[in-house]
């Protein structure tokens, strides 16, 4: 594999980690959605590039699914939901953004320290892809725990899925079944989420999950 192809793949994967960090500090609903669309776009470019350099045409399908569903359809739908519900206010975070970013940096360092030594038998591309993918997954988890808002958590979850797609395409020759089903399950997940958002607002006029937490299950 020539140096340029490697560098570009590296750039895209690194870019995804960067956009994950951008997701962490968004404090407006719409800018969060836009950043997520960018996240999905970077994933799809990265996957398309992998398809090119691995000469694995089926990965183009994965790239297309990521682009159409996650970079376009889901942000548009969520946008509409947010407008219709009138909840485009600031997003409350549990921890301060500065602290969250610091923790995020620690997580990226952790994933590089964990992944690089144990994948020494693999090619450079696979190693770095996996380290970045794990970073994206951990950052997504961090985002889910640091957001109170249901939409924020859903976007955190979808960014985890993006990280998984990056990992799956990085693992050379992984059969198509997984990629398509990942994309497919995201679609199902959206349906679930759509129903949930709809029902949640129907009941509480808010998608702030703290409203859900009022009831702790055991109290009368």
């Amino acid at each position, binding site marked *: 594999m020539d140096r340029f192809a490697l560098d570009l793949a590296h750039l895209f994967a690194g870019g995804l980690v960067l956009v994950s960090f951008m997701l962490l500090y968004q404090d407006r609903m719409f800018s969060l959605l836009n950043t997520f669309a960018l996240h999905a776009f970077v994933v799809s470019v990265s996957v398309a590039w992998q398809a090119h350099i691995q000469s694995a045409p089926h990965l183009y399908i994965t790239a297309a699914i990521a682009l159409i569903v996650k970079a376009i359809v889901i942000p548009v739908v969520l946008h509409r939901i947010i407008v219709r519900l009138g909840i485009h206010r600031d997003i409350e975070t549990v921890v301060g953004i500065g602290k969250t970013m610091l923790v995020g940096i620690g997580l990226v360092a952790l994933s590089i320290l964990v992944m690089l*030594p144990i994948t020494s038998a693999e090619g450079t591309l696979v190693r770095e892809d996996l380290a970045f993918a794990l970073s994206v997954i951990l950052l997504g988890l961090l985002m*889910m725990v640091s957001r109170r808002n249901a939409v924020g958590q859903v976007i955190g979850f979808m960014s985890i899925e993006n990280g998984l797609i990056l990992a799956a395409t990085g*693992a050379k020759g992984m059969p198509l079944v997984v990629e398509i*089903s990942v994309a497919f399950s995201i679609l199902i997940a959206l349906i679930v989420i759509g129903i949930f958002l709809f*029902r949640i607002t129907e*009941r509480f006029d808010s998608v702030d999950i703290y409203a*859900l937490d009022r009831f702790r299950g*055991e109290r009368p």
Partner: protein
Amino acid sequence: MSDPGALVVGAILVIPVVSAVLLAFLPDDRTTARLNVLGTLLTLLCAIALFFVRPEPGLFLIVDDVNVVFIVLNTFVGFTTSVFSGSYIAHELETGRLTHVYLRFYHAMYQTLMFAMNLALLANNVGLMWVAVELATLTTVLMVGIYRTHEALEAAWKYFILGSVGIALALFGTILVYLASSTVIGEGLEAMAWSVLVQRAWAFDPALLNLAFVFLLLGYGTKVGLAPLHAWLPDAHAEGPTPISAVLSGLLLNVALFALLRFKMVMSANAGALAPGPLMVSLGLVSVVFASFMLYRRDDIKRMFAYSSIEHMGIISFAFGMGGPLANFAGLLHMIMHSLTKSAIFFSVGHIAQVKGTQKMDDIGGLTVSHPVLGWGLILGVITIVGLPPMGIFMSEFLILTSTFARHPVLAVVLGFGLLIALGALLYRLNGLAFGEVHGASAPARASYVPMFTHLGLVLAAGIFLPAPLVSWFQHVAELLR
């Protein structure tokens, strides 16, 4: 597809799908409940046929000695639960908790769940298995939220978020396993086929396998409900319809544990990899002790038995973590006994909650007087689940304890302590529920008792006498599990 085995496997997967589609569109309630039963019955018959004909293992699906027991158990409890569901749902319709549209949705989802669980058990491809577990998670999320109350929504949301994160971690683990195998086996479907993985696992890179197993344990462990990853489980059990609680406890937790077992076999086939046993033993012990103490402070009857499920999943993980032919044998037996008993308990609890109009234990009392059959059914179920002789769970717990005493007495003491604490909690609660003054609202029971007593009868029979062919079968599987 002229191979009869392949036809049978195909039928096990196709029947639930066809039933799901039919049930989604048929309007009449009586027919749909019966059709639901018919669908699960046909699936059960096909599953039993697997004992006689078996297809060649393919790259996607496999029937081997390990999973055939689980498939039969899965379809059997699926069938009995659909019978129970028929009478349970009729009551929910009368009281207006469910409307007709939701009922159609419920039945379609029930069949989809059966499909997903059967697929997860049959899958040879680790990616396919993951997809199936994810599908099962999504369908149960929808069913937990079906009553659309405050509590149900919170439970479903919690389950959805925690379940999805767990499943995402499991996928990362699966990718790492593929990475470890593809360098040895070569790229392509073979490197994801579980049967090939086990054979060639000795050559995999141990470091990658270790990391993969940590992710798989956390991921699938969330679905198994092992403490401290259990937070979704009590809510999901308490707020959904009771047939779903029965299927969740009895089957879905097993399916997730089964996925873990498959990967454990890959791990143990590699000499250089971390031994998976100690991890499973410690998670299991934590679950047992934690859940036993939590049992004391429950107010909600379904929530209490959900904690009891966490406890028993802990026992099973502990047994498989200890490993060795005897502990594996006991673990397998306990898995089956727990499935049957816990679903039987939920059958009786479901009807009790309906006749009493509440799930709060303070408002339920004197069941043996007001509803003798339900009350004694519950007593029998609780006696079974706490592990008193002569029931089957006594035998499996006894085997687990004695085999552990021989090897690691300290662990056995901790486990025994947890079991006793749980026994105390459940019997103490049972006393209030079943005996004493009748209080709380009371409606006549129109219940189907057959599923409940069938399950308990089977557990009793297993406790008194296990037929020799069954024992040798279990021993064989226990050897395979290592």
